[in-house]
């Protein structure tokens, strides 16, 4: 059960822009266990998507992986040649991208696009067999009238259907790991519920490991087993989902939970916003990157980066409140 499927060690990703070097990811460590649903939460620009793109070596330029190691099923992904990494993408690691609207090529039938990974990885003999598999695949992701729909072009489908096609593409080769990068942004709540339900279903059926990248704390609470909270390119807290929500340790996690309006809360309970804004990662604040916005800031926070410590079993936090100085 506790077998590791993915381990990231000391990952650093910098973006070399005109404006300067954006230190998007600064030393991220995490490990994902086989069969679990792992959540990666954080606000815009915290580096959660980039971290996951590093796993399949698809950091968009001008970004570059500066240092660190990524092990997927024991394989050192970053030192693999491109041809070997390509064998992982789509085959072993399925990626569900953010924008279903632009994730599909308008010139090809959606069925072909969903089945393309099968062809690329040689899992089907010919196109004819691929189409047969695609119809089954569309059934799996619960697209009504799968045969007819697979012959449609992207513009003929609604947003929710397109997202299902994208999911079908990601699971076509029955990967060991699915990375879903904000699978439900720009999607209505009712469709979101359907998509999340589908993902839960797939996990139940195939036992696939799922990494869910999102900014929505509600989705995390509903879906994930373990959660990592990211802030400004670093992981600040990592814990079991129940522990994290019941007893958040890092001031940022606490702040987030108090800042988000919850439907079951009375409107009399006032939200507590986190003051200030997300720092510029070209010149990130020294020490703990959260210190300029933190209400419990101490001298050391401004100077030294807090180490990740295990405060309770399986509950890690990077904050000087809990670390030994």
């Amino acid at each position: 059960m506790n077998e590791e499927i993915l381990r990231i060690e000391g990952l650093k990703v910098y973006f070399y822009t005109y404006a300067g070097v954006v230190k998007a990811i600064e030393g991220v460590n995490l490990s994902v266990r086989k069969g679990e649903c792992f959540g990666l939460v954080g606000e815009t620009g915290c580096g959660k998507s980039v971290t996951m793109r590093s796993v399949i070596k698809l950091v968009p330029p001008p970004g570059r992986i500066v240092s660190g190691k990524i092990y997927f099923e024991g394989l050192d992904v970053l030192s693999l040649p491109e041809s070997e990494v390509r064998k992982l993408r789509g085959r072993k690691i399925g990626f569900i991208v953010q924008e279903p609207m632009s994730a599909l090529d308008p010139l090809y039938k959606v069925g072909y696009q969903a089945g393309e990974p099968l062809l690329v990885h040689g899992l089907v003999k010919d196109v004819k067999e691929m189409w047969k598999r695609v119809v089954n695949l569309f059934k799996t992701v619960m697209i009504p009238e799968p045969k007819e729909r697979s012959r449609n072009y992207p513009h003929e489908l609604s947003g929710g259907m397109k997202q299902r096609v994208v999911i079908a593409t990601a699971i076509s080769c029955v990967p060991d790991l699915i990375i879903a990068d904000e699978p439900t942004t720009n999607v209505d709540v009712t469709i979101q519920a359907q998509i999340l339900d589908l993902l839960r279903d797939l996990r139940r059926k195939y036992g696939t490991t799922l990494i869910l990248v999102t900014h929505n704390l509600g989705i995390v609470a509903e879906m994930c087993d373990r959660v990592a909270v990211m802030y400004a390119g670093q992981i600040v807290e990592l814990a079991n989902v129940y522990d994290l929500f019941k007893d958040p340790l890092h001031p940022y996690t606490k702040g987030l939970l108090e800042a988000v309006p919850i439907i079951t809360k009375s409107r009399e309970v006032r939200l507590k916003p986190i003051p200030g804004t997300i720092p510029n990662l070209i010149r990130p604040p020294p020490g703990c990157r959260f210190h300029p916005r933190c209400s419990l800031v101490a001298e050391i926070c401004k100077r030294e980066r807090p180490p990740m410590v295990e405060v309770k079993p399986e509950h890690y936090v990077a904050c000087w409140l809990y670390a030994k100085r």
Partner: protein
Amino acid sequence: MFKSLKERYEKWKFKNAAKIEEYRLMFYAFKRSPLSVAGSIMVIIFVILGVFGPWILDGIRGLMGFLYSHGIIRTEPSFNAFDWSLDVLQPPSWKHWFGTDDYGRDIFARSMLGIQVSLVYSLVVLVVAIPIGIILGLIAGYYGGKVDEVISRITDMFLAFPALVLAMAISASLGAGLMSAIIALITVWWPGYVRLIRGQVLSVKENLYIEAARAVGMGNFSIIVKHILPNVISPLIIYTTMDIAGVVLTGANLSFLGLGAQPPTPELGRIVFDGLDYLPEKWWYSLIPGFMLFLFALGFNLLGDGLRDVLDPRFRRRLEFEVKGEKE
């Protein structure tokens, strides 16, 4: 007295700091690209030649005469632009820097004067065509609907003809000459601007600040003048800069076909046209003025390219960090 001056300066500085910063960035953006600097230098030279061409020519003539009379140079160059002479079709030499044409006139002198004609020409065309384009483009783009339909279809009709053919037809029917060439070019040129402005307006109109202005109670006219026009100006400037070369070249084409400026008015395109009969042996006749035309067009194009970067706010933002990074 001084104190109040200083106060006023401080106040002015406070108010305009962001603006100054913006201009500094523009300047910096421009300066860092050698091609646009080269382009602007070329443009400046050509504009000076265009405006002061005859006087500059007189000056050179005077200087050469002075040098000759003091025995510093042995032969005095001839800058005879209009009179017939016996030095027919001479290759470039010290006497005739760019050679002579079939009437024995000096091509250097004629080219210098020709730039003026070309420049005036293109400016007149643009000064008339651009306002037509702005007004019709703003109306069509902002109001949309039937008005847009009418204006756009008319512009389409004009654009459907090949520009040169249409210009030739108009110019020929009005009789060959500089004036009719200008009228022909204006007729051909305004639709391009209507289309450019209309397209820009359509995209600017989508911005919420337009709707916000409407919600505040601003009238259509003030919205157009205060919010739409300023936001379509920079693409217009870029387009115009590149377009000057286009007008000059089309004008040269007309002259080249014998429809524009008539002899003996020197005009670059016309000179190229006249020299065509003598190619390739008497290459200088056509090629040297042709090369000047090329430089003229190139200069404006490079400048336009540079301006595109300078006027693009996103590009400036990227630079902003660079500049500030250097400061720290």
